[in-house]
């Protein structure tokens, strides 16, 4: 039962990763790409982490997975912000 | 080590150490330098005296120092080495005196006398070398220590002459080295032994031994100025007169000739060399050189150049004597080693005197110089007559023995003509000079009179050395039969070589 749930979560996570990657490749400009990538990947990672957390036996492991997700969330949000800001600055300069 | 083992080392060190100290002297300390030079030279003379006495009485003087397994630096005094050592020592003393006078007020005297002493040390070491390895070491050291002497003046011609000298001698040295190494691989350490050591090698080595002989003779022939390896010698004339004197009489040219004697007599053995069929080739090379040098000398107006080509010719008498099988020819060759040295140094001293005193560099400028500088010109005349072979000067003795030896060996057919032709040529290039010097009227002025006639015709340090050597040349001829004379000593060497 737990296995099934975790599998579904992981598969869903992978779907979001796929979507994010396709977005990165197909979308027209930097902002939309950034949007696709961060949104989809953060969600994908969250689902992946949740799936793995269910899979693991120890609570500590689950907590670590949560921590990883949070850390990546913070990092990717910040870097997306930085990239977007830099891009915008260059635009205004031109 | 006992005294007998130290003596050869001391003989070398008596010029080496003063030389090394002189390098580090202040340029201005002339007296100390002169003192060091003279003390070294006189000390060496005394040591050599002991050496002569001992070797005559069959004492063994040998120093040995291992440089690498199987490679020993050996200083060994035998009759032949003592002959050459004595010549070098005596002439060093004389030349030092001459050089002190010659270089008065010239720059770079520390360097000059330093290398001068090193040069003599190398010559003496080469004379005392007890095996071919040691010989090669000193042979190369001689090259190194003479280079700065030839380039000493620092003019473009001097540097160029020195470079040519170096190119020839280092190239020759390399061939000598290769030959020596090859021989070492074939036969082990090649100690100099009277009668040679290679005769006992199996016959299958003989082709290799012939090639090695060629390498060795070419390597030595460069310094001995065998035609066509003589090209450096006229170029090296740019050196200061004392250097030329030493180079031609003792150090460089003689080292080559001495090496040929060593290789033929004490490495291969004269009989074995003959057996390999190499002796005739050597003789022919010597004969060609004798005639060629004389002819070239005939056409030189520059006095030093004329003397240089004369050296080319005269030194090959030694090689010629070596190539004549039999003790008498040997005696002729070896005694010429000494006789040519004494006579040629006289000629160069006097040439230097003409140049230093009156600025005379060319034969054509020598008209009447005999009146202005009688003593010098007298010395010149004695030496020149000796070179031609006029009795009773030393040169006559050499030529006499060479002729006799050729007769004895049955080689008279080609040796005699060579001797006669060369003597005629000698006369042809020396007699006109003597005629000019004594019998032509002097010109209105000398080219450049540096030293005015005062108490002597020139400064004392320049005058006495040629006078002394000319006297020696005369004495060597007059008293040839006296004990310890060069001739007697050469006879001793020949007897020991042929086991008589």
């Amino acid at each position, binding site marked *: 039962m737990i296995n099934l749930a975790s599998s579904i979560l992981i598969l869903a996570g992978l779907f979001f990763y796929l979507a994010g990657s396709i977005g990165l490749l197909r979308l027209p400009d930097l902002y939309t790409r950034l949007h696709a990538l961060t949104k989809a990947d953060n969600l994908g990672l969250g689902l992946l982490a949740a799936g793995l957390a269910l899979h693991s036996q120890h609570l500590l492991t689950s907590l670590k997975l949560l921590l990883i997700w949070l850390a990546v969330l913070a990092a990717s949000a910040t870097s997306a912000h930085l990239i977007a800001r830099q891009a915008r600055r260059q635009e205004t300069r031109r | 080590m006992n005294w007998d083992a130290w003596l050869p080392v001391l003989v070398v060190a008596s010029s080496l150490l003063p030389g090394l100290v002189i390098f580090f002297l202040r340029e201005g300390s002339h007296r100390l330098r002169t003192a060091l030079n003279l003390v070294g030279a006189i000390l060496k003379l005394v040591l050599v005296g002991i050496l002569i006495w001992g070797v005559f009485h069959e004492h063994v003087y040998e120093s040995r120092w291992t440089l*690498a397994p199987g490679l020993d630096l050996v200083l060994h005094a035998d009759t032949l080495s003592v002959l050459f050592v004595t010549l070098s020592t005596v002439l060093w003393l004389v030349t030092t005196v001459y050089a002190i006078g010659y270089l008065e007020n010239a720059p770079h005297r520390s360097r000059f006398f330093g290398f001068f002493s090193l040069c003599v040390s190398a010559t003496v070491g080469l004379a005392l070398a007890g095996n071919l390895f040691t010989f090669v*070491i000193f042979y190369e050291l001689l090259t190194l220590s003479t280079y700065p002497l030839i*380039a000493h003046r*620092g003019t473009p011609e001097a*540097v160029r002459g020195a*470079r040519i000298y*170096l190119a020839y001698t280092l190239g020759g040295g390399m061939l000598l080295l290769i030959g020596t190494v090859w021989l070492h*691989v074939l036969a082990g350490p090649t100690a100099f032994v009277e009668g040679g050591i290679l005769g006992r090698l199996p016959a299958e080595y003989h082709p290799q031994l012939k090639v090695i002989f060629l390498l060795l003779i070419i390597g030595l022939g460069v310094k001995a100025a065998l035609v066509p390896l003589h090209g450096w010698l006229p170029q090296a004339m740019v050196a200061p007169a004392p250097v030329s004197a030493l180079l031609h009489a003792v150090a460089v040219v003689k080292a080559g000739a001495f090496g040929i004697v060593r290789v033929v007599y004490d490495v291969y053995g004269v009989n074995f060399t003959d057996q390999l069929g190499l002796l005739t080739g050597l003789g022919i090379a010597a004969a060609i050189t004798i005639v060629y040098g004389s002819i070239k000398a005939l056409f030189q107006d520059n006095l030093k150049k004329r003397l240089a080509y004369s050296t080319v010719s005269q030194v090959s008498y030694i090689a010629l004597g070596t190539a004549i099988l039999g003790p008498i020819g040997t005696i002729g060759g070896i005694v010429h080693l000494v006789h040519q040295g004494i006579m040629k140094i006289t000629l160069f001293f006097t040439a230097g005197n003409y140049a230093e005193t009156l600025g005379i560099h060319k034969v054509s400028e020598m008209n009447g110089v005999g009146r202005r500088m009688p003593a010098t010109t007298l010395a010149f005349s004695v030496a020149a007559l000796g070179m031609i072979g006029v009795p009773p000067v030393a040169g006559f003795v050499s030529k006499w023995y060479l002729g006799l030896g050729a007769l004895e060996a049955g080689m008279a057919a080609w040796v005699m003509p060579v001797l006669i032709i060369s003597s005629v040529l000698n006369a042809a290039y020396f007699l006109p000079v003597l005629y000019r010097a004594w019998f032509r009227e002097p010109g209105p002025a000398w080219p450049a009179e540096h030293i005015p006639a005062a108490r002597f015709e020139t400064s004392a340090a320049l005058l006495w050395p040629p006078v002394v050597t000319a006297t020696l040349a005369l004495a060597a001829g007059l008293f040839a039969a006296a004990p310890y004379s060069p001739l007697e000593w050469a006879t001793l060497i020949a007897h020991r070589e042929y086991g008589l």
Partner: protein
Amino acid sequence: MTDAMIGLVALPLTGAVATLLLPRSATVVAIGAGLATTIAAALLLFGVANQGALHYEMGGWSTGLGITLRADGLSALLLMMTSLVALAASVYASAYFSAASERARFWPLWLLLWTSLNALFLSGDLFNLYVTLELLGLSAVALATLGGKRAAAEAALRYLLVGLLGSMLFLAGVSLIYAGYGTLDLATLPRVVEPGPIAWTALAMMTTGLLLKTALFPLHFWLPPAHASAPAPVSAVLSALVVKAAFYLVLRLWLDVFANVVTPVAANLLGLLGACAVLWGSWRALQAERLKLLAAWSTVAQLGYLFLFFPLLLALPPGPTRDLAAGGLVMLALTHGFAKAGLFLAIGVIQQRCGHDTIRDLDGTAQHLPATTFAIALAGVALIGLPPSGAFLGKWQLLAGAVETGQWLWLVVTATGSLLAAAYIFRVLGHAFGHQPYPNQPVTVAREEWPALLLTAMAALVLGLGGAPVWKLLEIGT
């Protein structure tokens, strides 16, 4: 005596740390550390001579688990040379670097370089050798950049990249060895290594890496600019010791560790490259316009001679003749070390006193600095291989080996190379004769001129006349 091995590594390393912490008295500290290191090297040499090969298990762990330091005759000799050359160069450097900031930068790196050399010669472990090689490479590059000029930085960067590539190749070989034989210990390996793909490939990769570092033709391209643009004391050590260290490793690998793996064909290849190095390096030295470039190209050529010995050593059966040849090789390497270091120091004096080192304009220079000119002449004697230098004995053995094994090509190469060396040396010395008078004293700037003079005298006189113990020491193998 085994503590001397620790001292050889720990003393200069401690010195490096101390000079970093005490920049004001760095010179005194560094010279002190250098002296102590030299004493340790001498002690080790005596120890090896009296007690035979020594080893030291680091941390007390048995060989294999831990790292073992080893010293035999060869390494003791090279360590002694390293110490003497580095000490002389240190004395020179104490006068060369005038600004305090320069000195503060120089000394720690200098002592780190010294550490790495000692560690390399002592190391008995393949991976440890990789670390020492990297330490050597980085410290050498860092020192080479002290030249300050753009050319120096450019050459140093190329030097660094080449060195890194070399170390990587070496490490790849080491990895293979560990994969195949499960040990990194140099003394264990000869017993387990056998001819086959692993050993061949590993040896080929390690050798290629080391040849890059030792600048054997055609991998020499980086050497002349790097050695010619570094500060003089650094150039001295780069040319005399650093390339020699990589060469030492080639020698170790080929003659000890992989002795039953190497083939005459491979050795002939090395010999052929060496021959090319001799001829090409000498030729380029003859063309060089600056003294430093001349010296650097001469290093390329001189390293070539060392490789000429490989085909001889492989062709000679084990025995006294082979030992003689091996001794000749080491003698040649030692002589070159001293001579080239002295030459670079002497060139440094000329460069600093005259503001240039262009050969064409040297007239008169020689007259100002007779002692330095004399040092160049002595170095020249050793580089040409004339007696009484140690190189003469080395070349004698080289020629003898070539005759013995019938490999005449090497004989011709050696002869030609020596004559070319004479040509490039006397091209310089020809400028020593001019009309300008000498200064009244032969040695004018003592702290700068004496090191060069002593080093070159060591090469041209001491090694040649007193070199017989070298062969004795080399009999002491691991």
